[in-house]
């Protein structure tokens, strides 16, 4: 710590103290140094200080210089009137060292006009306050004697405390540079560094704008050490601009000690630099490229010297790198931001069809890219011939937008300009003839537009409107980059906007003309329907009209063992390989419907059993989706029937086995009984014969039962194979009738049989054996339920395209109440007469099923009165050419 040493100064602090005490009020009220009251003070005990051999300064708390003696004026080469701390500090290098001495007690050395000065400062109590007394002593004479000072020598610009301050400032600048790449922060740090090292009235850093070929100046505003902020100057410095112009053109530093006296002034001083009496400037260069300039100016002459120039050159080297990097970073940042914004724009607008929603998204996305006050879209309304400002419009209120309409009458110059689709750029909108012609004058006035950029929007060669940008926030005119960016954006959004316009225009119409496909898609897409389809145990596969899979539910995934992701959106043909040849027809059908949709109304459906590679058996039901006469696609329903198919196979195997096993013992029983009845095993008495006859009849019943059961099982499992062919019903009827005639004679039950078939009866189509079985079954009923001497008539007639066969008897008839049940399986009439006759109750049921398989019908007529008998009628289709084709 610095020790208070009053002796060398030769001042009695007591004296000083008492003197100061007298001056309390005067000091505090003292304003400028030259104030009259201060003059009076000098006459009092301060005289010894004023004549002291050392330069003495008294500095009030807060930095005000309240007193300086003559020696000080001499040392700083200023008059007493001019003396203030700021001005003194500017003479000292480093000024900061000097200023530090002026605010706190201490000791320091610094250079003043090339000479070395040592200073001591004391804090002196002064009423309730304290003041700083600075005593300065010249250690080596000023600049005139180079041998005594190294400060003016190249390479020895600085030393001692000044060197420390310089490196401190330099290190601080370095720190800032490392910590930030932001241009403004860097510029601030550079300017602050220069301020500390070379005091001046004006210090400016300019940044070279390569595109526009001018310098953008930045200065620090505000009080040093407190709130500083960087300000971008409004005026740019061109190549011909005063000292800056010299720096740019010559790429060399400029030091002018006295602008008024200088004979080799590079330029005539203009108004703006008239106040500058000395100037120091260096260009900032990096890698041979101009980055900007550092410029210092002072209202005093001789403010800067060669050592200042050297310091400034050192600073400029570092500053050049810093500014270059910051500019590059800013460019990269902007580029990155542009890309991000454009990507966001594309993403945000994808799928948006509502114009307002779309424009909102676009405006929001591009606003960060273009730093403008007014941004929005003008869309041309073709039907009205009006350009309309679209909501939202950045910087324009909604009620203004309602009025933002620019008429473009057909054939007018305004329309011609619009149709030309040229970008319009103006820096003075209110006086732009082109804009006036276009009809923008009132808008320009009302919105306070100065600079404006109109970028045309156009899709497929026809104009849609404009992207309007106006008034950049920093007040600068629009650059080529802005225009370029605007064009890119316009190019990107034009077609989207056009789609949206068209969509909004036709939306109402579209809704009216039921867009069925959208409806179906809507139905499928809605979560409720989808949930239902997903929940269905059957696999569901939906294709669109083009045959592409649009829905593939959970069950379908399981049944077909296919992942939804692998099928969704793909054409169905892609999967023919997976499902094997069995699925070929199914896929072919979908394909066929997709290429030539079924005509309407369509009842086309398609059913198939597909055996998959893993042995799974799947039934598929395919149907076209037709809604209000429009083909919307197909629906396929899959059902895993592997288990059913297996069960069916086992069942039919069982029935076949059982029937075979039953027939074998029945063969023995029936055979041996008949052999006995033949008397082949010896003579039998009447009772033995009657008993054997009973065994025989019951065996017959068993045989019929087994055969009927086999038939039923075949019909049930759909395994009745009909060999369809043209049949002559007359032959079959005759044969069957003859058989019963024979039985009638054998059984000695006399009956009259009539055959009433017209000679020209057309042939029917049917399976010979089955039609035989049907007629036999019905004739058998007629025969057994008709008492002796009854009458059985077989009649046939053509009715339209069918042949109707009636089997009429004079038997016991069928009560009305039983007629509904007569075709049920195992049903037998309640009449004891019926029960006496052997039967299974399966005959009519089988007959009905078989007739149905022939596309015919079976019905009965009976009064139910015994003796009036009944009429069983059935139909069979007439054989024609179509049948032949089917074969």
């Amino acid at each position, binding site marked *: 710590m610095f020790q208070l040493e009053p002796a060398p100064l030769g001042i009695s602090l007591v004296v000083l103290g008492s003197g100061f005490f007298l001056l309390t009020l005067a000091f505090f009220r003292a304003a400028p140094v030259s104030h009259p009251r201060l003059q009076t003070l000098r006459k009092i005990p301060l005289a010894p200080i004023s004549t002291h051999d050392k330069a003495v300064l008294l500095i009030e708390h807060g930095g005000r210089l309240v007193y300086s003696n003559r020696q000080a004026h001499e040392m700083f080469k200023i008059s007493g009137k001019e003396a203030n701390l700021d001005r003194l500090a500017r003479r000292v290098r480093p000024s900061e060292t000097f200023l530090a001495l002026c605010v706190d007690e201490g000791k320091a050395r610094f250079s003043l006009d090339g000479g070395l000065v040592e200073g001591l400062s004391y804090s002196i109590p002064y009423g309730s306050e304290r003041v700083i007394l600075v005593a300065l002593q010249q250690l080596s004479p000023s600049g005139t004697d180079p041998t005594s000072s190294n400060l003016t020598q190249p390479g020895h610009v600085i030393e001692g405390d000044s060197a420390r301050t310089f490196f401190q400032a330099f290190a601080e600048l370095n720190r800032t540079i490392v910590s930030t790449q932001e241009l403004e922060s860097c510029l601030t740090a550079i300017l602050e560094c220069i301020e500390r090292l070379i005091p001046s009235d004006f210090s400016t850093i300019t940044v070279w704008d390569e595109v526009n070929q001018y310098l953008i100046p930045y200065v620090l505003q505000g009080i040093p050490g407190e709130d500083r902020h960087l300000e971008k100057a409004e005026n740019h410095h061109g190549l011909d601009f005063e000292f800056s112009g010299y720096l740019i053109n010559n790429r060399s530093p400029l030091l002018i000690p006295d602008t008024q006296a200088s004979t080799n002034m590079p330029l005539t001083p203009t108004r703006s630099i008239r106040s500058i009496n000395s100037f120091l400037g260096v260009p900032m260069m990096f890698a041979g490229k101009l980055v900007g300039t550092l410029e210092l100016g002072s209202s005093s002459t001789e403010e800067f010297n060669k050592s200042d120039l050297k310091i400034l050159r050192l600073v400029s080297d570092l500053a050049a790198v810093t500014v270059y990097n910051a500019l590059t970073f800013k460019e990269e940042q902007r580029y990155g931001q542009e890309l991000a914004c454009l990507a966001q724009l594309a993403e945000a607008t994808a799928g948006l069809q509502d114009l307002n929603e779309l424009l909102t998204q676009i405006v929001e996305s591009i606003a960060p890219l273009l730093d403008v006050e007014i941004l929005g879209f003008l869309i041309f309304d073709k039907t009205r011939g009006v350009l309309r400002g679209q909501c939202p419009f950045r910087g324009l209120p909604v009620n203004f937008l309602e009025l933002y309409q620019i008429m473009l009458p057909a054939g007018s110059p305004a329309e011609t300009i619009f149709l030309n689709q040229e970008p319009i750029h103006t820096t003075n909108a209110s006086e732009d003839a082109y804009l006036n012609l276009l009809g923008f004058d009132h808008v320009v006035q009302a919105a306070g537009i100065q600079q404006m950029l109109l970028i045309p929007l156009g899709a497929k060669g026809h104009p849609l409107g404009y992207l309007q940008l106006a008034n950049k926030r920093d007040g600068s005119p629009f650059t080529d980059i802005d225009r370029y960016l605007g064009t890119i954006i316009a190019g990107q959004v034009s077609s989207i906007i056009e789609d949206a316009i068209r969509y909004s225009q036709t939306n109402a119409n579209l809704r009216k003309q039921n867009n069925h496909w959208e409806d179906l898609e809507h139905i499928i897409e809605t979560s409720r329907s989808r949930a239902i389809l997903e929940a269905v145990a059957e696999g569901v596969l939906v294709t669109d009209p083009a045959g592409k899979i649009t829905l593939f539910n959970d069950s379908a995934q399981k049944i077909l063992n296919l992942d939804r992701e692998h099928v969704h959106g793909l054409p169905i043909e892609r999967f023919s390989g997976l499902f094997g040849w069995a699925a070929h027809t199914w896929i072919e059908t979908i394909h066929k419907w997709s290429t030539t949709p079924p005509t309407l109304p369509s009842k086309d459906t398609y059913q198939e059993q597909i055996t998959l590679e893993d042995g799974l058996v799947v039934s598929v039901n395919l149907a076209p989706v037709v809604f209000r006469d429009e083909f919307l696609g197909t629906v396929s329903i899959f059902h895993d029937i592997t288990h059913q198919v297996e069960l069916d196979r086992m069942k039919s195997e069982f029935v*076949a086995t059982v*029937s*075979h096993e039953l*027939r*074998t013992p*029945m*063969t*023995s*029983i*029936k*055979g*041996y009984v*008949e*052999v006995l009845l*033949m008397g*082949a095993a010896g003579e039998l008495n009447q009772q033995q014969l009657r008993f054997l006859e009973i065994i025989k009849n019951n*065996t017959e019943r068993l*045989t019929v039962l087994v*055969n009927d059961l*086999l038939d039923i099982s075949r019909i049930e499992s759909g395994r009745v*194979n009909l060999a369809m062919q043209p049949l002559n019903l007359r032959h079959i009827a005759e044969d069957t009738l003859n058989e019963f005639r024979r039985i009638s004679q054998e059984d000695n039950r006399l009956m009259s049989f009539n055959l009433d078939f017209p000679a020209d009866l057309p042939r029917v189509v049917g399976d010979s*054996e089955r039609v035989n079985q049907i007629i036999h079954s019905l004739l058998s009923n007629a025969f057994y339920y008709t008492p002796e001497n009854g009458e059985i008539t077989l009649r046939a007639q053509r009715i339209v395209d069918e042949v109707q066969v009636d089997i009429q008897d004079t038997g016991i008839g069928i009560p009305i109440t039983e007629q509904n049940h007569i075709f049920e399986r195992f049903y037998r009439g309640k009449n004891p007469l019926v029960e006496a006759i052997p039967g299974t109750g399966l005959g009519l049921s089988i007959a009905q099923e078989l007739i149905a398989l022939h596309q015919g019908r079976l019905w009965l007529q009976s009064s139910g009165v015994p003796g009036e008998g009944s009429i069983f009628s059935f139909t069979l289709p007439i054989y024609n050419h179509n049948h032949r084709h089917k074969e």
Partner: protein
Amino acid sequence: MARILISEDERDIRELIAFTLQIAGHEVIPTSNGEEALEMTVKEMPDLIILDVRMPRISGYEVCKQIKSDPGTKHIPIVFLSAKGQDAEVKAGLEAGAVEYIIKPFSPDQLVNQIGDILAQQYLIKIQVTDTTRK
């Protein structure tokens, strides 16, 4: 009358057929499986063969096919007598070369009549052949 070979694995039925045919005056050569039937056919050269379809090892169809493919035996008429009565089974039997397919249970009386008809037909063919050779 005629020498008839029977092939039937069920003893009861084999005896029933044999008894019935013998009553009708035919000579019967009973066999109980397909191999035996083939062997005896070549050995005995019967006038007619009655085959069951479902027999152990060699089915009736197979026996029929082999007899029909042997030039020495292919002229012998074959009748199936089977409990298997489905259309496809009857069809398969006839395609194998049988002249008749009788479904069990059968009536012995009817069987004798049918066999008689077939034999008479064969006999007529024989006579015709003899007649034409004579001329």
